[in-house]
């Protein structure tokens, strides 16, 4: 590097600051907002830190709308669709990588081509399918499409992971008396756990974030997810921004904890699995 040494630390600090501020700032801003009263929020000039912090908004979040139910719905929908997606994708990816399928490239392409169709354009027929299956306003109305939503990502991540497992390991296990499935379960899955995990997190976040299908297929309180629940807080006669902020904070915290705990796995998984080719 042509840069003088003393500047290097400064560059590091600035780089870290830019990335961190860019990422954290909006979340911090709504955190501050969530402790303000509506009057303080409407005050000109605006304040940054709440002048008289109040917990009222957090209480209102739980009393105005059943946000705990929304969180539970989101959690269950995301978890179940992730399990479904990872299972289905893992089986498919394994078949394509290991079992001598005729032209696996074509099958993979077909699979991906189908999933590439924008699910949003299928809003109407999906609505009608779910309606005839009487699944509207149930978790399943979202679990099934969400599993498809993340299938290309999961399948690709897992294909690239499976390709990295030497076939000899499996063959050795099969010689030791394991079946194909046994070998998959005992040898391949543990070795690809990071890949499965990455695929799982990606699918989970995709499902947690989805809005349009949730708004269309399951808007009912009993099945309503967090993004829909919070968006419906704003109304014609109410745009209770401090309460919405508090709700946003409550909704962001679980997913932030998840990615904070598993951050190395996520980024590492993306690094290892994502770009291998």
């Amino acid at each position, binding site marked *: 590097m042509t840069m003088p040494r003393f500047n290097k630390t400064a560059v590091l600090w600035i780089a870290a600051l830019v990335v961190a501020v860019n990422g954290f700032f909006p979340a911090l801003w709504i955190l501050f907002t969530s402790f303000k009263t509506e009057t303080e929020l409407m005050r000109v000039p605006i304040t940054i830190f709440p002048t008289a912090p109040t917990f009222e908004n957090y209480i209102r979040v739980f009393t105005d709308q059943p946000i705990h139910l929304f969180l539970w719905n989101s959690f269950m929908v995301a978890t179940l669709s992730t399990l479904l997606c990872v299972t289905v994708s893992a089986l498919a990816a394994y078949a394509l990588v290991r079992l001598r399928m005729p032209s696996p490239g074509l099958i993979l392409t077909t699979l991906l*081509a*189908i999933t590439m169709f924008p699910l949003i*354009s*299928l809003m109407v027929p999906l609505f009608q399918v779910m309606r005839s299956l009487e699944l509207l306003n149930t978790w399943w109305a979202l679990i*099934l*499409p969400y599993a498809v939503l993340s299938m290309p990502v999961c399948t690709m991540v897992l294909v690239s992971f499976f390709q990295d497992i030497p076939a000899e390991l499996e063959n050795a296990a099969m010689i030791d008396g394991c079946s194909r499935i046994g070998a998959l379960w005992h040898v391949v899955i543990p070795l690809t756990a990071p890949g499965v995990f990455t695929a799982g997190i990606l699918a989970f976040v995709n499902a947690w974030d989805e*809005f349009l299908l949730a708004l269309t297929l399951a808007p009912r309180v009993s099945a309503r997810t967090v993004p829909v629940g919070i968006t419906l807080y704003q109304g014609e006669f109410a745009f209770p921004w401090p309460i919405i902020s508090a709700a946003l904070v409550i*909704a962001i915290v679980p997913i932030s904890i998840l990615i904070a705990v598993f951050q190395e796995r996520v980024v590492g998984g993306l690094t290892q*699995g994502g770009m291998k080719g």
Partner: protein
Amino acid sequence: MSATPVVRHRLTKLERAEQRLGWALLAPAFLLLVGVVLYPVVELINQSFRFNQLTMPWMGTPFIGFDNYTKALGDPRFWHATLNTLIFIIVTVPGAVIVGLGLALLANKPFTVKWPVRLGLLLPWALPLVFAGLIFRWFFEYNVGLVNAVIKMFGGQPLTWLSDPTLAMIGIFVAIIWKTSSFVALVLLAGLQTIPKSLYEAAEVDGASSWQQFWEITLPMLRPAIVVALIFRTITAIQTFDIPYAMTNGGPGDATETLAMYIHKNTIDFLDIGYGSALAVLMFVVSALVTAVYLRHTQRNPARVAT
């Protein structure tokens, strides 16, 4: 010797068994796709040729040929929504890639404490789009929004961000690029870390500047990752809905309305299933074109396109 044919025979048998197992393992994936994608696609096309107004059940759902399509092609609102969708693709896809590349380069520095930077990239990625829309709507609020507060601090006049068509588009661009650039950055960061250090060391020996290293090594080596990011962003950009829905709900007028929003309006608000289906088929055509481009890329190197 007779051993060779026997071995070959046993191999084919094993192969057949393996193929059967292979199809069995692929079956759940295909089943799911048939139920959630293929059947709805057939149904969508069927409905697009019918009159189907849920608010007028006594009319039934008669077949009306291409009427819905003719109506769409003569509907300025449809063309405007298509144009807006294309503008969102053209601006926010490269925008997110450029900002994402910047973030990735910054995040690729040799930090001793890695978590603030890592979380800084992961948090926007994990935030629902519609939340980003809600937050930026408030940032761009006229009286008490942060952006106008900053403008006023520097002595400027506050701007009507969400009720001026151009400014509203810009506001939405900013929100989309902020939200999606972190995903791009994560993909590109992964790409950056696969570039062998030795390349840079060799370049340094040759006396190449940082700028030259970026153009000669980083960018070419990152090309596959950038293509992946571009494609994935494009596919999501076609479906742009959440952020404009939360920020402007298409306003002012229909200035920021996207195709997905117009379809949603026709089907869920107006319950015009026939017309909504025809619009969806047309949107489908747009994304099929993009998918075709995507497939041309993947077929050359399938496993490269991940995440």
